[in-house]
């Protein structure tokens, strides 16, 4: 496993690509958080005058959702392209060790990327006495979220030998994972007018996404596409046909709205990210991110194993 880890690390740092990705990541993060502040209404960091990295951690999930799939896309797809995949699979070590070796190297690269932003905390210390708790918490949040994204990217990379496709699908999945919490407002509003449709959306949107994933990289693409289409049909049908009784609407809307908001709140990555990012480490948030990693690394190992039998 250590040999695999070293080999992957060599692949990251052996060429200019690793440094290039890190440099681009730092430039984008610093531009967004120091000069543009897209989430806080604009204005540069000095004008805002806050001795915190609130904006940096605010934009990280969105930037990471784009950059980290690019890091992870080559983990398996590159081996497939270079025809070293079969060799790896026939090595006398279990697949999970190979996967963990690759995953560990990607995590080390993530750490390197985060370490490259250390000039920001140095600047904070230069201009006053910041509260280091949220800064440490923010970096922990960035690491665990990034670990989740890399796991997703590695899983998708294991499904295809096309790096561009792996990147695109992983990008969509990561953006979906970040954005799921943002659906709260949308579905909450829908729950007030059409409660049944809101609950149906809650179930069918993930089915639609999974179908899309299967259609893109799965073996039975027609089935995947059919599942997605079915999800859209069910969604549209319920939305158009559900006519809530005006007398029961208020009560129904309340129940349905609360269910939607509570469910999306629990699975929202951003909520857990913000919780850690404000400087509060909670076991449930850490376990939540660990679950993402365990789920996608396991799926990755199992999908690779399945190739032995195909």
């Amino acid at each position, binding site marked *: 496993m250590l040999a695999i880890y070293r080999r992957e690390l060599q692949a990251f740092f*052996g060429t*200019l690509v*690793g*440094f*290039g990705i*890190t*440099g681009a990541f*730092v*430039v984008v993060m*610093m*531009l967004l958080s*120091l*000069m543009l502040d897209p989430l*806080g*209404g*604009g*204005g*540069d960091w*000095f*004008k*805002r*005058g*806050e*001795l*915190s990295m*609130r904006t940096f951690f605010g934009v990280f999930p969105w930037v990471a959702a784009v950059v980290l799939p690019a890091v992870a896309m080559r983990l398996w797809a590159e081996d497939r392209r270079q025809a070293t995949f079969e060799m790896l699979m026939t090595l006398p070590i279990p697949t999970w060790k190979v996967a963990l070796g690759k995953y560990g190297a990607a995590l080390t690269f993530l750490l390197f990327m985060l370490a*490259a*932003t250390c*000039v920001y905390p140095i*600047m904070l210390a230069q*201009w*006053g*006495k*910041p*509260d*280091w*708790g*949220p800064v*440490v*918490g923010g970096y922990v949040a960035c690491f665990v979220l990034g670990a989740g994204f890399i796991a997703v990217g590695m899983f998708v990379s294991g499904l295809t030998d096309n790096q561009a496709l792996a990147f695109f699908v992983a990008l969509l999945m990561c953006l979906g994972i970040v954005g799921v919490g943002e659906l709260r407002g949308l579905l909450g509003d829908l729950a007030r007018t059409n409660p049944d449709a809101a609950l149906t959306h809650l179930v069918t949107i993930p089915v639609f996404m999974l179908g899309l994933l299967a259609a893109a990289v799965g073996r039975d693409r027609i089935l995947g596409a059919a599942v997605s289409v079915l999800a859209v049909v069910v969604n549209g049908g319920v939305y158009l046909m559900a006519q809530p009784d005006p007398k029961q609407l208020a009560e129904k809307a309340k129940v349905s709205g609360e269910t939607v908001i509570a469910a999306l*709140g*629990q699975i929202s990555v951003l909520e857990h990210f913000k919780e850690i990012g*404000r*400087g*509060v*480490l*909670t*076991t*449930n948030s850490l*376990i*939540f991110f660990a*679950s993402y990693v*365990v*789920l996608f690394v*396991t*799926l990755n190992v*199992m999908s690779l*194993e*399945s190739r032995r*039998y195909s």
Partner: protein
Amino acid sequence: MVNRSRNYTLFFYLCAALVTCTLVLVNYLAMEYRARVDLTADHRYTLSEGTRKIFDKLLDPIQVTYYVNAELPPARVNLERDVVDKLSELAGAAGRDAAGNPKFSYTVERIERAQFASKLEELKKYDITPTTDVQSSGGDDSSVATDASQFFSSVLVRHGTGKEVAINGIMNLVAKEDDARPNRVDTLEFDIMFALMRMRSQVQKSGLKQMLKSLTQPLLVAGLVSEQMPRANPKLGKALFDALDQLEAMGIGNVKVGKQKIEWGKKIVNEFGMPSYFTPTTEPTVDPNEPPDPKPPSEPPKPGEPPRTPPPKVKREGPNFYYAYVRFMLGEERWIDIQDFSGETTAEACLKKIEDRLWDMLKPNTTLGLITPANSMDFDPRGGPPQSSYAPLANHIRVNLGYDTRVIDLRAREKIPADLALLIVFEPQSLSERELYEVDRYLNQGGNVALLYQGWSARFQVMRADVQDIPLQRNASSDAFTKWAEHMGLSFGENFLVHRSGYRLNTFQNSRRGAVQQPVEMPVAVNVGADDVDRTSVFSRGLSGWPLPFASEVKIDDKRVEALKLQRQDIIRLSGEVYNYAPEAERFASIYRGLGFDSPEVAKRINKLDHAPLMASLLTGLFPSYWEGKTIPKFEGAPDNDSDVGGQPAPAVKTRPGKLVVCGCAASLNSDYFPTWREKDIQPLLNTSVSFYRNLAEAFIYGDELVSLRAKTGAPPRIAGGVKSSDKVTWFLLCIGGVPLALAAVGFLRGIYRNKAREEYLMSLKEPGASHE
């Protein structure tokens, strides 16, 4: 034949489902049994020790209702969640009582847009009001308001039999401006706990008879009723007079009622013929008396005609105003008026209203004692009695904080009352030895004293246009005060402190159009900044932005404080760039009106401090008497045969823990600096200025229970002072370009190294006899 592929696919799906179910279960358990570590410096996301102690001792449950609009502005989309998170944290920490009932429960009431108006009316009785949120776009310099919305975000706290307390306008920290909001999500814990304390300390209202019985001086009541009464309530005048009669009967000699009936259609005017203070209520009126019987028909009905009915009685229409006015006076200082009786139709209803308002006047109230310097008495330009420059502050405390204030004239041998929440001594350095003795005794016996030192002052009187200097005056310290302060380990800076971005006062200059305001370019008041106070302390709530004119540094001798076994807690310490302003020649000390901070003339007089000067500190503990073993000083100018004590050995006093607050400035709302200022100009200074006194009074009234609560927190630390453009550009370049450049350099060097290694390897291959394993 076994289809291994199909079997594995089945195995894959089963395993995936199993892993997913296990992870869902683990996450569920992690939510139920969660542990947390708060990494923030002040543990702002963890309940304070004070809150936990209150919950432990709680007998009656706390019920909280959160009123919030169902549809919030986009920027506030997480507001409800944030508040609910905090409430659920409080509910979790409160736990359950012996019977298993939750000690803290909360409900969320979402208000739909259609219900807004009706809810507004309904919740008025709880003092719940909606808040206005202005959304803006652009940076700090170009911030433009784009939208404003009004919505509910209020918490109503219920506990025991106390009156509910509403906390309005609760906001989450979304924009920089939110830091300045009085009620925020991050301060909710403090606000709810403090509301609870206030509810617990509410004095139960006593009955009217009991209230009147406990009066220590007669209650004078004046009732004014006009002949005409409102159409909707024509019997009001009679009902009100009946109520006053009943009140007099209940008072058994303690109540003296005077009643005056105002003639039909007349208005009360003062001696100059102008409308009086007693303003009438505007409403259509009628004569409340029964109209006379209409005249019977002049001729009897003829035979066969139906009997003639008399015409109906018609009440006489009155003017469009009436008086139903009562004034209650207790001594010369306390009085209240009741003018609105429009909803009361019976004597009982009027009496109930009177009872409620009387309770407002008679209930026990927090009293702050004020000792003002002898030389600050000034004549009221409107012809009133002479008053101290600090008199407006006393008025602001009364009006804004609802506290009673009492000026204690020690020179007139008035004693310091024992029931004061706080004794505020303005310019203590001017106190005579005997006055200081009285203050010292009060402190020894467990009193709470705030000493507000004012080393320098200036007169901002109307000046001639050609006079450029504002004369400064040193407020000399008496020997007695200097020695007493030394005994306590206190001393004060010689000069006064200034900030580059401090507060600028205005002076007045004669012109053809009268006196016009002219700003003084030199900032003569330091501003208390957010970083100058401990944000978690109850003593520093709302002090950010407090201007302190001509403030002196407070110096505390730690060794002396330790020797006296006192505890010290600093309240304000000025950080950033602070300068000493040293008047060049004290004989002609002045400030140049037209010269700014960077002018060469001013630069000669200021020097930057190399430390953060202390502005206010709190000492607590058993204060030993300075006069122990000495003789009691006599009043100044008192003859030798004065019967008052003086010259005898000071009696031993049983010391109790007292509290002494020392501040290097007294003039925050001194009227000398605001001549002819309009109320709206003073208003921005008012909140921070009275906050200081409120914080002290509340902390002393509620004691350790309040002090151990964490106060207002949440605002992140900010950059102190200004930032030069060159520094800004350097850091931006370093952050945005520095790291990528360094990475490029490392990558480039690594590439060279790898190429070199590769070449060496290839060369080694070409060497004869080399082994290539």
